[in-house]
């Protein structure tokens, strides 16, 4: 048995022994675990599960041991994911620290920053949020104006950030600020970290069409940020920001795997909600065609990600291929959400936990919130611009 096979066996055994039964059921929307100073757990098992995984250092399995991880190789980490999928284990903890700040610190942080922040993320002690967009700076992020005045050993920051997800619940923020207004807009941006409890930070939750209000407007009023909290170089935060966006896009392109699953597979939804003929085929021609096209697209997107992974491992990956993933992954997820509520008919347009089932309610919610996928993290339009200019070399206007 190869080392990897042994690892797979041991991993499966450990998960079976340590993952509480309740943590091996599909996660509901409100049951995510994000850790932090004021960590909230949906139930005791969720807390036990997180703690066991923290102890095993599998919350951030590829990070080095000194940073709170287990130092797994990519192949091992993939096996861990596969085994967790197989056993339907929930993610023990998730959040911006894991899939955005962590990777960025590993690439751009000082050793001191890594030792300071990564273990706290891995152990679920500190929950992070992101301070990127501003009211006038959405797709054109580099035009941001949140101003950081240089005061020697620290900055004084003033301005407003929008779309700070769970800004009212997070402990720390990674934030883009403008340290220079002369020259190209990309060249005066600095990437800083600060505590959300710092004086001068306030947040206001913004209600969305889903009824949720997990995004905040964040107001920064003379907030003091020590210079040791700069990640990368001063004025050169744009490189860090872009690297981090790549991680965000990757995560978003794989949402399908990471999100709580609906009650049924798409085929099961079809079988449950649609009229079938005597051979079990969906009667409605156009709906049958839509379902087929979605399933084909979905399967193909998965195969493309798998191919890119394997090509990466073999050292033959053309990076241009990965530039399409955020676009195709999020558009595909939107198609799925729309397809499912359409299959549900009236029940997919309900907003009523009593007259409709939990899952029907959840799918309507998912459909609404999914509209953000092709906007956040670089809109589909920005992605297509990037693909055409960077990957295909088409000229600027």
């Amino acid at each position, binding site marked *: 048995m190869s080392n990897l096979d042994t690892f797979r066996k041991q991993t499966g055994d450990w998960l079976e022994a340590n993952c509480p039964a309740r943590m091996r059921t599909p996660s509901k929307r409100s049951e995510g675990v994000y850790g932090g100073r004021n960590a909230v757990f949906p139930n005791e098992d969720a807390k036990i599960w997180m703690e066991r995984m923290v102890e095993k250092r599998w919350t951030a399995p590829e990070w080095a041991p000194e940073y709170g991880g287990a130092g797994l190789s990519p192949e091992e980490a993939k096996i861990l994911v596969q085994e967790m999928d197989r056993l339907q284990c929930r993610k023990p903890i998730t959040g911006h620290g894991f899939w955005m700040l962590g990777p960025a610190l590993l690439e751009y942080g000082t050793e001191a920053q890594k030792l300071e922040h990564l273990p706290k993320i891995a152990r679920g002690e500190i929950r992070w949020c992101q301070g990127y967009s501003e009211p006038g700076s959405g797709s054109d992020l580099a035009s941001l104006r949140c101003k950081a005045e240089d005061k020697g050993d620290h900055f004084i920051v003033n301005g407003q950030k929008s779309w700070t997800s769970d800004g009212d619940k997070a402990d720390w923020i990674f934030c883009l600020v403008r340290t220079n207004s002369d020259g190209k807009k990309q060249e005066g941006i600095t990437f800083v970290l600060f505590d959300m409890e710092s004086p001068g930070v306030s947040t206001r939750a913004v209600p969305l069409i889903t009824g949720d209000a997990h995004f905040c407007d964040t107001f920064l009023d003379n907030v003091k940020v020590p210079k040791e909290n700069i990640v990368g170089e001063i004025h050169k935060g744009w490189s860090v920001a872009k690297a981090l966006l790549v991680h965000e896009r990757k995560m978003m392109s794989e949402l399908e795997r990471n999100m709580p699953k609906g009650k049924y597979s798409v085929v099961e939804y079809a079988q449950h909600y649609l009229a079938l003929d005597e051979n079990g085929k969906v009667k409605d021609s156009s709906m049958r065609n839509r379902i087929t096209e979605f399933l084909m697209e979905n399967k193909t997107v998965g195969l493309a990600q798998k191919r890119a992974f394997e090509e990466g491992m073999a050292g033959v990956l053309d990076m241009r291929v990965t530039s399409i993933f955020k676009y195709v992954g999020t558009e595909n997820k939107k198609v799925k959400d729309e397809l499912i509520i359409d299959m549900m*008919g*009236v029940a997919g347009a*309900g907003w009523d936990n009593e007259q409709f089932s939990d899952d029907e309610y959840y799918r309507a919610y998912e459909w609404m919130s999914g509209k953000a996928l092709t906007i956040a993290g670089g809109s589909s339009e920005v992605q297509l611009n990037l693909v055409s200019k960077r990957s295909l070399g088409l000229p600027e206007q």
Partner: protein
Amino acid sequence: MPLVLNEEQRMLRDTARDFIQKDVPVELMRQLRDDGSSTGYAASVWKKMVEMGWTAVAIPEAYDGLGFGYMGVGAILEEAGKTLANSPFFSTVVLGASAINSGGSQQQKESLLPLIAAGELTIALAHEESNHHDPANIQLAAKVDGDQLILNGKKVFVAEGGNADKLLVSVRTSGVADEQNGISLVLIDRSTSGITVTPTTMIDSRNYANIEFNNVSVKQSEIIGVVDSGFAILDKTLDYGRICLAAEMLGGSQSMLDKTLGYLKEREQFGQKIGSFQALQHRAAIMFAELELTRSAVVAALSAIDEDSDDLAIMASLAKTRANETYRLITDEAVQMHGGIGLTDEMDIGFYLKRCRVCIHSLGDSGFHKDRYASLNNF
């Protein structure tokens, strides 16, 4: 088949536009939602609509109506769609009065249509029994008992089911589900004993209900049309509804296109108006083209009602399919082009997005109507 409004209809439309823009803005819909309104509309607005004669628009002059026809009704609903203005107009005038006028006895018309015209009677169509529109799928049982019918069964997704004075109910007087024969239409007071109305919240914040019928007794004289042969009237009534709902959806689409074009001309990113980006320009042009095409289909379908055309069913399925897909396209593009702000509750876009999806499932989604269109064309 005229495809332009006549002078009377244009005046009606202009009056409706002025009134709705001023007295029934989209803010009213927001307020009704935030207040948790149980009716989903403002009584005062409905009162004014009656005063303006809208309830009489499609009713023949012989029954105290104005006889302006459905081109006029469509013009009103298009204006209503622009601000998501809600009222019992659609269910009462388009579904209720049409069914009575198409299938009712002389005596029923004389007693009921003037009441509707005067705004003294509202009606809801209680028809669906499952999550998907399916006209002949009627199981609600109506058994003859002397001069009475006894009803047992349930209806779902009844628009205005919690508000209307009377329910127009499709029932099975013989045969089995999916058979067109054996269906009858009957008009019942909502307050009749044995009727239980359970409100359902849909994403568009309007009034819908699930309704149970438990040994509900109704006189046979309340049947609209001939017993067992109600399907033809029902399907015609549904076609009127599909077409007029498409007119409302057209208005919503127009409103979202206008709002989006406004945003494209105003919002700057990368140092330019985003409306100067060619990819968005082409998509905007396509939205405009789709909207104008759909408008043509809807107007032609309204005209088909007024002309009592043999093509009514084909035109209804065409208009509803196009309205479904155009409204979907334009609300989706409105969200995407507005970016994140389009997903905040403080913008109105979400209201249209949600209303659109409820409309899509009302009276037949695109799959239903494409299948029907194909079958009507023999392939």
